Structure formats: C-alpha cells, structure tokens
C-alpha cells in the first residue's frame, strides 16, 4: 500500500489520536470545542468511507469486516453528535463555574483519546491489542467521570476504577488462556493472538481451556457491559460525570465491551467441544433485565434512572446474542443500534434539563412540556422509545427478540417480557412526573442544541417505520456471521 492511498481503518485511529494531542495543546475552549466537533465529524466520514473502499486484507493488528463496520459507524456517529451536544453543554458548565478552562482542555483531549480507544478496540484483529484498547477507553472515561471533583464524582470514579480494573484483569486472564489454548496448534508468537487466524483453527483447540477462558472473558468484559451482578459501577459513573460522558458511556462504551464478548463468542462457537456460550449469556442477560427493571422504581436521580435502563437494555441485547441464530442475532444488533441512538438522545435532553433546573432529582423536575416544550417533548419521545412503544425502532427490535424467543424457549420469553413490562411501568411513571403537571423549578429558557437529540430520535422513528432493504440485508449477513 502506497503512502498516498487512503486507508479508512487507519484514519479512524489517527484522526482522534492526532486531535487529542492538538486539543491538549490549545488553550481556547471555544476553538477546541469546535475542533472537537470537526475531528469527530472527520472520523465519522472516515468510518463511512469504510463502506465504499475495498477492504485491506486482515493484518496482524487491524481488521475490517462486516461485523465491526456496523460498530465503528455507530460509534463515530454518536461520537460526532455527542461532540455537538457537548459544545453547548460545557459552555454552560463554564458559566456556572463547575468546570474551568484548564479542565476543558483536558476534557477535550480525553474525549478524543476515548474515541481512539474505542475505535482501536473495534478494528483490532489482535485479542491482546483489543484488551489494551478497552483499557485505554476505560481509563479515559474514569478520568472524565471524576472531572467535577465533588465527593460523589470522586467516589463514582473510584468505584468505576476498581470494578473496571478487576473486570479488565479478568478479561486479560481470559485472553492469556485463549493464547495458551491456541499455542499448541497455531504455534508460538504473535499469530496465536490474531483473531482471524484463531477463528479458522478453533476447532482444534483444547475445548476445556477455551471454556475456562470464556468464563473469565464473560466476567471481565461483562463487568464493562454492565451486566448484573457486576454492574455496580455503572449507575454512579453515569450520574456523577458530565452528561456528554453519560451519553457516550451508555451509547458506546458498553457496546465496545459487548463487541469484545461477541468476538470471543464466535471463537467459542467454532469449537465443537467447548460449552455453548449461549446459555451463560442468556442467564446473565435475563438477570440484568429483571434486576434493573425493579431497580428503576426506586430511583430518585434522573441520570441514575436512565443508567439502570441501560443495564436493562444491555441485558436484552446480551440475551438476544446468547439465544443466537440468525433472527435473534439480527434483533440483538438492531436493538443495540436503536438503544445507542435513543439512550444518547435521552441523555442529551437530560443534560440540558438538569442544567436548567440545577438538579438531577426527579422530584424537583415537573411539567417540562409546559416550560420547555422542545426539551420536554424530546424527552417524552425518547422515553416512549426506550420503553419500547410502537412505532419507534426499539419496539421493533424488542418485538423481534421476544418473538424469536417464544418460538424456541417460551419460558425464557415469559421472563423477558415480564422484565420489559416492569421496566416499562417504571419509565412511564417517572416520565409523567417529569414531563407533565404543574411546572416546578427554574423556567429559564434553554440554551440548547436540539439538533443531535432530534436527529437521533428521527433515526429511531424512521427505523421503526421503515427499515431500508440494503440495511436489512447487511444486518442479516452480520447476524449469520455471529452464528
């Protein structure tokens, strides 16, 4: 490959990496906020061009295939829209003095470093490199969660740090075990960590070792996905950090860990002697759904409420992938995309709302549709979508998950439906409190950028009504890859 040719897989890495350095060096926060948007847009365009350009053959470190393109495009798109939201959000934080220009410099540099880490995790073909990338993404988000330096923020960051580190440690042990399993067959050295090499020869690996490896990987990356009972870091991290980070955590970082899990699931599925990874994932998914659904009722903090809702939805997604088969995988992928878009849109709304009201307590927020119609109705649409009502996209994907499960395991489907309904009740209950009724709290006009929120919601609505044929084909193709 000549130096002149454009390699989008490398571009989604070097654009964020270079901009992180640049943003760390520039002092003016207005300029850096704009540069952050430009860099995120450039990364998104580079990701889109992955569709158009002939893919390079999988290398020792980087890989572009049909599966990770979906993740990369989603990741860079939400990264881009969040950067627009973030520009408005931080300007307000600066006015109120919660953040200082020095921290903003740090914040923007970290934002791009995080995008770099996540993109690297998606394109890496080496399971060791993937692990390092997930760690980079985790570290940067830890730093951003603690950026307000309040008691609560530091506690959340500390908890996230410790639990995340233990998760990462388990994932590394699992990775080492996979290498140990591969070594006798593939031979020593870097090849035995290259995913595309591994997946072709998994059938010959020692299945017992693979089983143990998968358990560690499930525990490790599962902590980062936020599966119950390993979810304890997630609500705190969402509630105490800046809202753009909550949006990115829910919308993107959970997907990164999920993606890592899926890669190993494909490995395991290729080995006939190994345990089926499905039942393990189904169990953890169901526990997360039911647990999070009940926890939703006791939430008093609006960001925590939606953090638990993220646990619920990650549970549904992991459940769907655990069920496996073309239909359930299709539903899982669709649900993941819809959840990312909807949940980040909700956090965009919640971010502006909590800034206007000066609080995150649900009890102090009332009558939003009266005082702030755009934000209020945006939140209503978002919550209606996340609760799974038609005609929005999540209804379709949840319907697919449930119906494909009913055909195979009616009992599991009943549990799943129960969890979804319980969560539905909690969300609608809280929504009516927050959105309608006598207005309470500040009525100051919102200085908000509505574009990212409504763009996401529009996409979710369109996907719920009409899902374009080529995309369906693509998703079905990926679903078959997932086995």
């Amino acid at each position, binding site marked *: 490959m000549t130096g002149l040719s454009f390699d989008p897989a490398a571009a989604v890495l070097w654009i964020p990496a270079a901009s992180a350095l640049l943003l760390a060096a520039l002092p003016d926060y207005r300029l850096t906020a704009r540069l952050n948007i430009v860099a995120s847009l450039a990364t998104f365009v580079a990701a889109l061009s992955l569709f158009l350009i002939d893919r390079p053959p999988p290398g020792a470190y980087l890989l572009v295939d049909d599966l990770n393109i979906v993740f990369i495009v989603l990741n860079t798109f939400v990264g881009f829209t969040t950067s627009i939201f973030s520009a408005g959000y931080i300007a307000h934080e600066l006015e109120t003095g919660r953040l200082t220009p020095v921290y903003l410099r740090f914040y923007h540099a970290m934002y791009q470093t995080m995008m770099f880490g996540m993109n690297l995790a998606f394109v890496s073909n080496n399971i*060791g490199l993937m692990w390092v990338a997930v760690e*980079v993404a985790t570290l940067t988000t830890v730093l951003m969660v603690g950026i307000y330096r309040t008691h609560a923020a530091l506690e959340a960051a500390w908890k996230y740090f410790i639990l995340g580190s233990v998760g990462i440690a388990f994932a590394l042990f699992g990775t*080492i075990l996979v290498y140990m399993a591969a*070594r006798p067959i593939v031979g020593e050295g*870097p090849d035995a*960590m290259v995913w595309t090499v591994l997946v072709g020869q998994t059938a010959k690996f020692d299945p017992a070792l693979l089983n*143990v490896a998968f358990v560690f990987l499930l525990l490790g990356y599962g902590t980062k996905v936020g599966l119950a009972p390993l979810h304890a870091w997630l609500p705190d991290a969402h509630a105490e950090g800046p809202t753009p980070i909550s949006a990115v955590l829910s919308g993107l970082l959970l997907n990164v860990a999920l993606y890592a899990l899926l890669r190993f699931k494909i490995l395991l599925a290729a080995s006939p002697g190994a345990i089926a990874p499905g039942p393990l994932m189904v169990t953890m998914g169901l526990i997360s759904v039911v647990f999070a659904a009940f926890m939703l009722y006791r939430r008093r903090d609006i960001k925590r409420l939606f953090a638990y809702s993220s646990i619920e939805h990650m549970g549904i997604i992991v459940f769907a992938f655990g069920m496996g088969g073309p239909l359930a995988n299709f539903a899982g992928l669709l649900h993941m995309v819809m959840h990312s878009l909807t949940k980040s849109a909700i956090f965009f709304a919640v971010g502006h709302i909590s800034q206007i009201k000066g609080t995150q307590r649900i009890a102090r927020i009332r009558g939003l549709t009266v005082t702030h119609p755009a934000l209020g109705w945006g939140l209503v649409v978002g919550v209606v979508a996340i609760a799974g009502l038609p005609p929005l996209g999540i209804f379709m994907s949840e319907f697919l998950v449930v119906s494909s499960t009913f055909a195979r395991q009616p009992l599991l489907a009943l549990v799943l439906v129960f969890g979804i309904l319980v969560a539905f009740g909690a969300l609608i209950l809280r929504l009516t409190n927050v959105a309608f009724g006598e207005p309470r709290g500040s009525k100051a006009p919102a200085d908000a950028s509505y574009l990212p929120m409504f763009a996401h919601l529009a996409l979710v609505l369109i996907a719920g009504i009409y899902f374009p044929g080529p995309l369906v084909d693509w998703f079905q193709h990926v679903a078959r890859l997932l086995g």
Partner: protein
Amino acid sequence: MQLHSLAFDVSHTLAGGLVLISFLMLYQDRLYSLLNVFALHAVVLALSVAWQAFIQDAPHLYVTAAIALVFKAIIIPVALHRIVQRLGIHRDIEAAVGIGPTMLAGMGLVALSMVLMLRVTPEADPLAREDLAFALSVVLLGLLVMVTRRNAVSQVVGFMSLENGLVLAATGAKGMPLVVEISVAFSILIAFIVIGIFLFRIRERFDSVDVSTLDDFRGERR
C-alpha cells in the same frame, strides 16, 4: 524431568513463593507492613519474570522484570508509604472479615484454582500448566485482599498483587506477544490509581480514605 528440571524447579519455587507471599498479605493488619510485603511480592515477581526471560530466551521479558522491580517494588511502595504517612492512617486496617475466615477462604481459592487449571490443561506442558495454576491463585488471592479491605490504599495493594498474578501468567505462557506492552499499560493504570488516591485526599480533604465512608456521599442515600 532430567534436562529442564532445574529450570522447572526454579520457576516453580518462584511462582509458589508468590502464592505464599499473597497469603502473607492476607493477614497483615498494618498498612506499612502490608506495603513491605507487597514490595517483596514485586521483587519475587521480578525474579520470576527474569528467570522466564532466561529460560525462554526472550530478552524482551527482561523489560517486564525491570518494570516490576523498579516500578512496583520501589517507586509505588515508597509513594504509598508517603501517602499513608501524610494521611496519618498508619493505624490498623479495618479488615471487613476476620483473619481466620479470610485465610480459610484463601486456601479454598488456591485449591479451586489448582483443581480448575490442572484439570483443564492436561496436555499443556507442565511448566506452563503449573505456572498458570499458581498465577490464578495469586489473582484470586489479590481479589480476596481487595474484597476484605475497606481502606483505599490496601485495596490498591490488593489490585497490584492481582495484577502481579496476571504478569506471572502472561510471562509463563511461552512466546506470548504484547506482554511488555501489557505490563506497561498496567503500570500506567496503577500510576493513575496512586495519583488518584493522592489527589483524592489532598484536594478534597476527605475525612478518611476508608471507602465505606465514601458510600455516604452517594446521591441517592440522602
């Protein structure tokens, strides 16, 4: 057993030594002594990694050994010593669970990892196999230290000993790529944690670095 028996015995002894030192860590009830035991842990790890570098003829592993020796056995314990001194928390560690049950749990975990790893790896070469079993024991004991302590400094020590177990596993897996990179990545992580504790206290003036008091600040519990 003839040709590689010395190589086998030495690495076996060092890995076993790590498990033993992890046990020592379980019942230290003063922060200073815990830090000293951890420094010893890191020294043994460095020796073990250096020995692996020698017998596997893998010079890059010497870098990992050097990191373990300089960073984990010297810099971090000294830094933590300072922090403990400055915070004035060199009193007893409030162990959440008593020493007796903790030791029993530790033995159970070691037995578990032996049974698990030795059973699933009958075909792997004995060196790597027992190394892995020891490494898993160290990892689980590190986790136990983290679970039974409520003090932030001792939780970090627990995490670092857990991480030592991972380095042991990674270096024992012959020819594993990226070991050096991974150990560097981990060192950065730990450096961040330690700096974090430092800032935690200096900037925010918590009354204690006892994690259980932090729980009270949580948004939802009033």
